[in-house]
């Protein structure tokens, strides 16, 4: 690595890092990732909140999978029949429900339990950053004290994402129902399929980038709820590219799963239906133990490294 002087004269950085010319940027992203990996190597306990979340999600996924089977169908069958239809209780159509249902329950678990675990994770990362041993018990206790604020942050993110996705879908449908044949050269079938997924991913990353520092500001910076959210927005606006990279880079490993989930019907017909379940389990492992882990760790460490005072 060859040290180069940043043209803006802001300091010494290494040439292969994502260097910002923004005056508020102090720590390069490679350092953040290096710190994250070192922290994980030294303190495996940092994985606990993410492993718990993955465990809960896996149990819910298993229940969704077992819903059409005796004895689970007695309890889980009626709601599926009411909301989705009787056909989703039969093999192999029930596998079509798995990606949709797991995504729905993931949102609910994120808001209800994920908020608590996110707060605990932020506190544990701060403990490691201060050269202390990570303690899950004290972190979860600290997080529980601010559960309501954490709940509001995660709920706000989920609600914004829900309406943003809905806005895109309805907007596109209205545009094409109005009689337009194409939008930017693409027909409705293209927009409804891959392009909607790409737009949804873009929305997810941007919304996540806005809120990604809210939990560290709340838990570590001891800010009030709305101030934590506001300061997260400010930190993002001052470090747009770094923050977008923080949320985007881990997300890249998730893309093959998204493609496979988009092709659920194809997998059922042409490979074997149980592959959908395997993909869903892989999704849980990747989302909790790679994407969420690295986004939370790098965002918290970025916040800690660049904390004023």
């Amino acid at each position, binding site marked *: 690595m060859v040290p180069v002087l940043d043209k803006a004269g802001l300091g010494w950085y290494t040439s292969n890092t994502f260097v910002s010319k923004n005056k508020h940027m102090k720590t390069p992203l490679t350092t953040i990732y290096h710190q994250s990996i070192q922290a994980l190597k030294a303190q495996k306990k940092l994985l606990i909140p993410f492993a718990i979340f993955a465990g809960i999600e896996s149990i819910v996924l298993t229940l969704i999978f077992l819903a059409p*089977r005796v004895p689970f*169908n007695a309890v889980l069958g009626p709601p599926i029949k009411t909301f989705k239809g009787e056909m989703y209780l039969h093999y192999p159509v029930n596998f079509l429900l798995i990606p949709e249902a797991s995504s729905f329950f993931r949102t609910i678990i994120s808001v209800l339990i994920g908020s608590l675990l996110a707060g605990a994770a932020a506190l544990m990362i701060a403990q490691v950053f201060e050269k202390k041993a990570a303690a899950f018990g004290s972190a979860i206790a600290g997080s529980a004290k601010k559960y309501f604020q954490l709940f509001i942050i995660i709920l706000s993110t989920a609600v914004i994402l829900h309406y943003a996705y809905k806005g895109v879908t309805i907007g596109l449908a209205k545009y094409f129902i109005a009689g337009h044949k194409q939008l930017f050269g693409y027909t409705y079938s293209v927009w409804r399929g891959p392009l909607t997924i790409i737009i949804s991913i873009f929305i997810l990353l941007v919304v996540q980038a806005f809120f990604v520092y809210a939990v560290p500001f709340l838990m570590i910076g001891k800010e009030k709820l709305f101030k934590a959210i506001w300061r997260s927005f400010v930190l993002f606006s001052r470090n747009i590219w770094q923050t977008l990279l923080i949320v985007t880079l881990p997300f890249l490993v998730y893309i093959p799963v998204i493609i496979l989930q988009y092709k659920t019907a194809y997998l059922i017909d042409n490979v074997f239906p149980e592959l959908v379940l395997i993909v869903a389990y892989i999704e849980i492992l990747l989302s909790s133990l790679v994407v969420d882990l690295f986004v939370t760790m790098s965002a918290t460490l970025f916040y800690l490294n660049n904390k004023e005072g």
Partner: protein
Amino acid sequence: MKRILYCLILCAVFLSGCGRDQYSIERDYWKVNRQAQFVLKNPVATPPNEIQRVVSLLSNFAAGHEKNTLAVRAEFLIGRIYLAKGMYDQARGQYNAIASKYSKSAAVVSEALFFTGSSYQLQNNEDAAIAQYRQIIDKYPLSPRGLQMPIYIAKYYSGSHEPVKMQEAYRAAIAHYESLAQKDAKSALALRACTLVAECYAGLKDWHQAIAALETIVTNFKDRGAVDGVLLNIAVIYQRELRDPPKAKEVLARLIKDYPDSKYANAARELLKK
């Protein structure tokens, strides 16, 4: 902690793989059906031993789940494989066996007779095919297949470019359906029969009679459920077939007035603007 985890994994494996419930039977059927679909995709290139293997898979499935409806499907699938492979005698033998085995079920027997007729149809043996189809009409007129057969015969003649026979078949179908409808004018069967009468007149391109049949449905069934779709059909016939836009608009106005919240109301409003 590890013990609990292992117990959970074992429970999940047991519950997902070992229980013999309807779901696991559906899974078994899906597997044999998949093998059958490979054969049906390219029956000509499939060697006889592969046909035999798939047929025995389906037979074993049917024998193993005799009381399950999927067993009937598996047995019909065997017949379909024989038909696709051009083994017509074996196919008819299979359908005969199904008809004997499930002789108490009008729906199953009428299906078996229909596919027997289809096998003759595939061999261009029109008389034998029609004889099978007429047998369904005579013996099982109220089964789902039986209800369809009179109009099916007319369409069959239409497809084989025999206009005189087609017209005769449509007239016979109309008489058959009208007699069914008269038995209980307000029943669900009468509704289905009247709809088929309208379809028959449409096949004859006798649009005024088709409208009359649809109007009968409106009169007899408007108190029992929404007939908005029927009204839209009448309007479309006036517009497209009889080239009578004022009449079409009159019916559309009726639709909007009687069913303002109908899913067809917006389409009707759009058509009224034109």
